[in-house]
Each structure stands twice: as C-alpha cells, then as structure tokens.
C-alpha cells in the first residue's frame, strides 16, 4: 500500500522584490493512511506553503509530490482541480465558510463541484451529525460560535470522503478549550475513517495529541519525516 502522501526534495521559492525567498528547501516526507501528523513550526517556517503544495493549490519549484502513489506536481490545472475535489479535504484557520449559504449547504459545497455523488444528498446532514451540530443545519455561519464554525469546516472537509485532510492552524482562532475539542474531533475522525491528516499548528500541547510531529524550521524539515 503506497503512502497517502509522499514528497521528495520538495522546494518552493517565491520572488520577493529583487530577491528570491526559499520557503521550502528539499522537503521529503511520507504519511500513511490512518495517521494524523502535526506540522509544527514557528510563523514563516513554511507550514502553510507545504500544505498548499500537498493540497495542489500551488506548484513546487522543484521536487516530487505523490498522492496515493501518483505524481501530481506536473498535472494541468483541470486535473489538479480533479485531485483536489476527489482526494483532499481542507480545514482553514478561520473556517472559511461561505456566509450566504446555510450550514448544511456549506457542508455540501464540495459536492456541488462534483466531489461526490449528488444522489447522496443526505451525506451533508450525516456529516453535521458526526461533528455534533445536527440542529444547526439551517443556520448561517454568522449565527455560529467560532468552535461551531470550525466543526462545520471539518464536516465540509470530510463530506466527499477524501483520503487526505489538510488543516492549516484549525485551532488558531479558538480558545484553548475549544481548540482541544476540535483537535480531538479531528483525531477521532481520522482514526475512525482511516484518513490521513496533516495539521499545521504552533501549539505544542495540541501537537502532542497527533500520532507524529514534523518540525519545520526556515523551510527545512528538522525531524519526523516518517516513511
């Protein structure tokens, strides 16, 4: 069984004014199904850049990314969108829900773009139940607390049953109690559905709840590459 996600010598540089900034410098890692990995590092260490590359939202300058054993770094944009909609679920720091859609519609949004079968219209409601918000289906994001919004974002990330969950500071906007709950929920769902999750965080306490920690410093993997 190939790893869900694997990288080799992954590099990403950005032009910044007259200079070139190397955000990632030769990252090689691999994560298996059922594994929750905490991506730890200070601000600017390259966590978000790495998640964007793994999530096919951006292209590496050099190196290889394999998802489910297949190389994706050179795929055309349309196929990258296909990879995103079928294999990847995102959870953002601020939940990034669409304010004009109800909670239930937000959860079902990936299915609108063909991420899953439209015939299974009951899945979003089941996902809401799974994250403990069955009674909030008709509410709008503005009517929810920060913790509730993040639960909805997790339900949206899981609605199309992706193999890989990428969460960028999902507890960054929450108090410590809510942060622990969200992290625990992610942990529980990853184990239950045998998903693979990479969760970026700078909270050392929460990262301890993951199966493994990967430390990034100035774009370089310090330890925890796995594989």
């Amino acid at each position, binding site marked *: 069984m190939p790893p869900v996600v694997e990288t080799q010598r992954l590099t990403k540089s950005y032009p910044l004014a007259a200079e070139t900034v190397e955000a990632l410098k030769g990252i090689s890692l691999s994560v298996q199904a059922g594994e929750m990995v905490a991506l730890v590092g200070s601000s600017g260490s390259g966590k*978000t850049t790495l998640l*964007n590359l793994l*999530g096919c*939202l*951006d292209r590496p300058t050099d190196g290889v990314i394999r998802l489910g054993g297949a190389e994706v770094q050179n795929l055309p*944009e*349309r196929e990258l*969108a*296909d990879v*995103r*909609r*079928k294999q990847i*679920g*995102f959870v*953002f*720091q*601020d939940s*990034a829900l*669409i*304010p*004009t*859609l*109800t909670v*239930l*519609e937000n*959860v*079902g*949004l*990936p*299915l*609108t*773009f*063909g*991420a899953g079968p*439209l015939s299974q*219209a*009951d*899945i*979003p*409601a089941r996902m809401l139940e799974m994250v403990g918000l069955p009674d909030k*289906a*008709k509410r709008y994001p503005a009517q929810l607390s920060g913790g509730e919004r993040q639960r909805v974002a997790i339900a*949206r990330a899981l609605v*199309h049953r992706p193999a890989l969950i990428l969460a*960028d500071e999902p507890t960054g906007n929450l108090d410590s109690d809510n942060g622990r709950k969200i992290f625990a929920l992610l942990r529980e769902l990853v184990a239950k559905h045998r998903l693979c999750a990479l969760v970026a965080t700078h909270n050392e306490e929460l990262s301890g709840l993951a199966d493994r920690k990967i430390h990034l410093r100035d774009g370089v993997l310090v330890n925890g590459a796995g594989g």
Partner: protein
Amino acid sequence: MQAIPGHLRLATADLRRRPLRTSLCVLGVALSTTLLLGTVCLHSGYVHALDSTIERMGYQVLVTAKGCPYEAASLVMRGGSIPMYIDETTFDTILQDPDVQEATRLFMQGMEAGDANRLMVFMGVDDHFRKLKPWMTLQRGDWFSAGESQGEAILGYNAANTLGLNIGDHLPVGPTHRPVAIRGVFDRSGTQDDGMIFLPLTFAQELFDRQGKLTGVGVRLKSLDKVQPFLEKIFALPSVQAVTMTQFRSTVVEFVATSRILLLLSALVASLIGALGVLNAMTMSVSERLREFGVMKAVGASGRDLFGLTLLETGCLGFLGAVLGILMTSVGGWLFEAALRRIVPFVPPGRLVAIDATSVAGALIAALLLALLAGVYPASRAARVRPAVILRQTA
C-alpha cells in the same frame, strides 16, 4: 432544504447579499430594456395603427384646398377645423370623372365644448359617406330623416358615451348653439369617426356660415392604377390639390422611422450604460469575494466552474432586468401613449406600443447577451483566482 447547493443557488445567494447593488444593477438593465423594447414596439404599433386608420378611411385620395396637403390629411384623420375651403362644384367635377368609383363631400369643423377644454368635432356628410364607409353601421336610431338640411345629428360611439346623450336628446351645436336632435348612434369603428358628431352636410355648412363650401372630398377610385392619371387631372383644376393616403402614409412612416433611429441610438446608449453597470457591479462583487472563490477552488471547483458561476450570476441580473423592463414597457407604454397624444399633432387611434411575443423574446435575448458579455471580464477574473495566493493574502 437542499443540502447540496446548486449553481443557481450559489449565484443568486450573492445577489441577495447586496440587495441595493443588485436592485440598482437590475434597474439599469430594466431601463435599457424598456427603451429598446419600447422603441421597437412603438414603431410597429404606430405603423399598424396608421395602416388600420387609413384602411378605414374608405378612400384613397383626399382632395383639399391648396396649402399643405399633409396637414389637411392629418386634420381629416384626427378631427379638427380645416381653415381652407373648396367650392362644392369641385365635388360634381370629381364625381363625373370616369375613374372615380365613389366620392364623398367632407365638411369638418371643430369647436370647444362649452363645459370644458374639450374639442367637439363636427362632420357634415351626405349619403355618399355611407357608400364609402359601409362598415359605419348604426348601433341604434336611424340615418338623417329628410335630406341634408335638417337639424339632426348622429353621434360616433365614443361621442355618445362622452356626451351621455341618447336618441331624442338635444345637443346645442355651432357658434349659435342651435339645438339639434340626436337621430342615431354609430357602432364602434375603432377610428377617429368614433369621436365625431355627424351633421347633415347642408345644415353643417349653414351652421358655420360656409354655404357651398367643403373642407375636402374623399375619393375612391375604380382601380389603384388610376391614381396617377387622376392626380394629374386634379392638379389641373384651379385652387385644389390632392394627396393619396399612400403618400400620406409614406411621409408619416418616414418621419416615424427617422425618430425611431434616434430613439434606437438612445436605447443603444442606455443598453451600453446598463451593461457597464453590470460590469461594474460584478467586478466589485468578484473583487470582494476573491477569498470565497479561493475556498471554492480548494474544495474542488475548477476555473471553469467559477467562470460559469459568475456568468450565471450576471445572467440572472440580465434576466431579472429584462423581465422588469418588459413589465415597465407594458405599463409605461400606456403612459407614453397618453403623453404622445398630447404632444404629437397626428397620432392614429389604437395601441401605439404594440408588444408582441417576438419583440419580447428579442428584448430578453438582447438583455441576456449584454449582461453575459459584461460578465465575461469578472468571470475570467474569478476563474483565474490562485487559491494559494489569495488564501495567504487574506488569512
């Protein structure tokens, strides 16, 4: 509740988020649609009403005193005083012409009604009038009882309703307010005749002190081929001239067509402004939602999805604007007609803004196409969103 939002739901959700912007944008499209549809329908309605009026005149040539023949023709068609006269002997000359099938003497006078600023139009006619207009049937009552000199009147359908008079009632007419008995009421004809008060010709001439004078002679020829030779004969007569209804129609239609070009230009400018309104509103909307588009891409939307979604949103604006514009044309058409009748010297009776299915479909398609065209730039901007950049910038 739908768990999976459809593309239409996504498109309209944002339109509802900014109701003022959406309303103004829809109103812009609606106004341009109104102007465009109104212009197209005004032209076809006007020409149709004009044709219908001319057809029901009953004659192809109008002979009048020398002056502007088109002014005389328009006065005869709409009703009013014609200040120039021809001798009654002209009628006898015309009637004897071998090309003439039928002719009628016309003596038209208008005067203000005593109780309001309303014009009462009197038409002195003889028996030939009925031969030229066999469709002018009496709804009730009878034709003039004894010749053409009696103090009797037959009312057009609308005149009877407006004046509230019935058979046997008396109506004061002319400068001396001589009472005449109502002898009959015509059926509705759908022409200006409905508003007139018909008097026996000789009585009308005496009433207005114009004995032996006519304001015109309506002539129906045996064949349309005879029009040109007949006109040449008329022009040979002293102090008279002739205008054919075809010439009159061409002149009016030409005038209307010229006005239509100006109106169409205004409509095109309005459409351009409406499209710019859509472009502006959608560009603002897309700029405000770049993060949302980034998120949508992250959850699986392709550039093509976002292009289609934004274009669908502009399509909704175009559709709503077009529907509102069509409604506004239907309602505003009546008001516009009323205003036009007050301003323009000759306006034929009947609906001038005639809205038909083809024009409505055309206006709908034009508004949709313009809106979609205006939506291409914002849609391509939405489609080009790079989620990694946008999410990093707005995190």
